[in-house]
């Protein structure tokens, strides 16, 4: 039953969670959290469908999604990084704001567009980039000076400031990159997973699953990728579990239940000092 095709299909399913989670990881490593992933994904999804339906090109649509996520994360950047508003409050507000704006945009009539067909060259490129991203982010964080700077800011903001590290600039770049990643993730959901459609409630909590995977992966790029992939596999297996006799409502709740259980296990492991989250979070 476990075949190569299944594992590959799970990768296609997990890709948006992985992309959004890696973007969020970068920001969290620099010591801030943006809970707005769900909203940035929704807005990215809506913008991508609009752009694709106008341009007829899903690839340009993906770039539109990227821009959409970027726009919403710039609200977070101004409110949290410049005006020092509470990051939790602003994050949740951007969830609602992003979804609201996404639905409004869809109300202009752009809800159907040409899909980004699975396993087309463009789709293969995205999958390849998604697979390369954890390694690239790992090298960036652990093998470059910029990575040391990012992690230092996340570990001890005051000391980093004293030492003249570029706290605000790095966090701004991280927040906007995270937003762009979430936007692409949402665009991917709409263009590939839902075959070029946008509808209200499309993101269905996947943004939260992405934030969950950051914790499950212990703030390590490879760990986060594994966590996101496992959640994608669980989502893909939902129809199989139903055919095995599991009631469908339980099957539909599995990703959320799994993340909850995993958080419990991870929180127990996290007692050891080796597995500490970035301290200024």
């Amino acid at each position, binding site marked *: 039953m476990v075949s190569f095709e299944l594992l590959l299909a799970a990768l296609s399913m997990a890709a948006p969670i992985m992309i959004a989670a890696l973007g969020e990881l970068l920001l969290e490593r620099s010591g801030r959290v943006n809970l707005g992933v769900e909203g940035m994904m929704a807005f990215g999804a809506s913008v991508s469908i609009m752009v694709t339906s106008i341009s007829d090109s899903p690839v340009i649509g993906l770039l539109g999604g990227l821009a959409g996520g970027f726009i919403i994360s710039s609200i977070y950047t101004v409110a949290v990084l410049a005006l020092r508003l509470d990051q939790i409050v602003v994050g949740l507000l951007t969830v609602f704001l992003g979804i609201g704006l996404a*639905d*409004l945009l869809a109300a202009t009539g752009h809800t159907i567009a040409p899909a980004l067909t699975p396993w087309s060259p463009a789709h293969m490129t995205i999958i390849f980039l998604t697979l390369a991203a954890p390694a690239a982010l790992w090298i960036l964080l652990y093998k470059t000076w910029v990575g040391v700077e990012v992690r230092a800011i996340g570990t001890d903001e005051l000391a980093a400031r004293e030492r003249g590290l570029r706290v605000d600039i790095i966090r701004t770049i991280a927040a906007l990159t995270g937003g762009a990643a979430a936007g692409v993730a949402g665009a991917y959901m709409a263009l590939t997973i839902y075959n070029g459609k946008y509808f209200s409630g499309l993101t269905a909590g996947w943004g939260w699953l992405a934030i969950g995977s950051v914790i499950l992966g212990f703030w390590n790029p490879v760990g986060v990728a594994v966590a996101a992939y496992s959640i994608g596999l669980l989502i893909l297996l939902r129809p199989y579990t139903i055919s095995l006799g599991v009631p469908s409502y339980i099957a539909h709740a599995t990703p959320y239940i799994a993340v909850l259980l995993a958080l419990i296990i991870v929180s127990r492991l996290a007692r050891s000092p080796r597995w500490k989250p970035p301290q200024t979070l």
Partner: protein
Amino acid sequence: MLLLEERGGVSRLMVILGAVTGVLIGFSLAVLLTLIAGVSLAGALNALAYTYASGPAIASILALSGPIACSAIGLTVAYRARLITIASEGQVIAGAIAALWLLAYSGLKMGPLEGFMAPLLLSGLLGATIGFLVALLKVKLHVNEILSSLMINYIILVVANYIIGGPFREGPFAITRSVPHEYRVSYIIIPAVTGLITLLLWFLMSRTKLGLAVEAYGKAPRAAETYGYNPSRIIFSVALISGFTAGIGGALMILGFQYSMSPMSVFPGYGYMGVLVAWLSANNPLAAFAASLFISSIAVYGRLLQASGVPLGYVLGAQALIVLSALTAVTLVKYRVRWL
């Protein structure tokens, strides 16, 4: 680098005026946003006038404020103790299901007083149970309550949809039985109930030992612990209180305006609106009561425009915009922004 410099001598009145200005700016932007969906400016303003000046709309504002205020007032207490739970959304849904079961499925015959009090109590207890779970996960297993409460919301949504489409299904369509007419309450009753809860929690916070403990723990957790306050007891208490009130909100939703339920493709949002209200009111129960009426009016406004093509997601988006605008305005009143 951007620097925030505290302005000296900013009075409380200035802060409140700043917040009101922020709300008005956010509100104007929210009204203009409806133009994206193809509403004409005249249509948007007409709907605005109708929202605040017509009997049916005001009745709706009062009715919808029930679950919003119940969530918000409890959350002000939880947030003061730094328990950032978002579970109110799930608690409202669960409370609604519990009230619906009691009144339309249990077969119990109740008089007017029991028929009103019993669903409130049952829904409140179910909400408190969910709150207990969130607190247990936080205190005993150190799970971040924001994520755990959100996951719980999604699980509750899935289970509620199963109950509505399965055991509660009535007839060929996926819709439940309705609450019998004798149990339904008028929109006048709803602010009376939420007003009473507000006063109770205001009394609890300002006149009791628990209120003092919550206040002390919220302001300085370490110091409070050193002085002998038990943090887990405080967290459990506020989780139970906020869960109980949000659960009552679910009962009010069923008794006051919803009457029956059908499967939900997205969250109804009253619990999330309660979160917004708690923030807008700076965690003050009395202010939360007033703010929930205002947030409820935005929901009514959004619904009025639904016929003109404004989507459902607009409501929470507009409310979030208003809260964000208010918080920004308050910061700008309190601090001077300078480039360094």
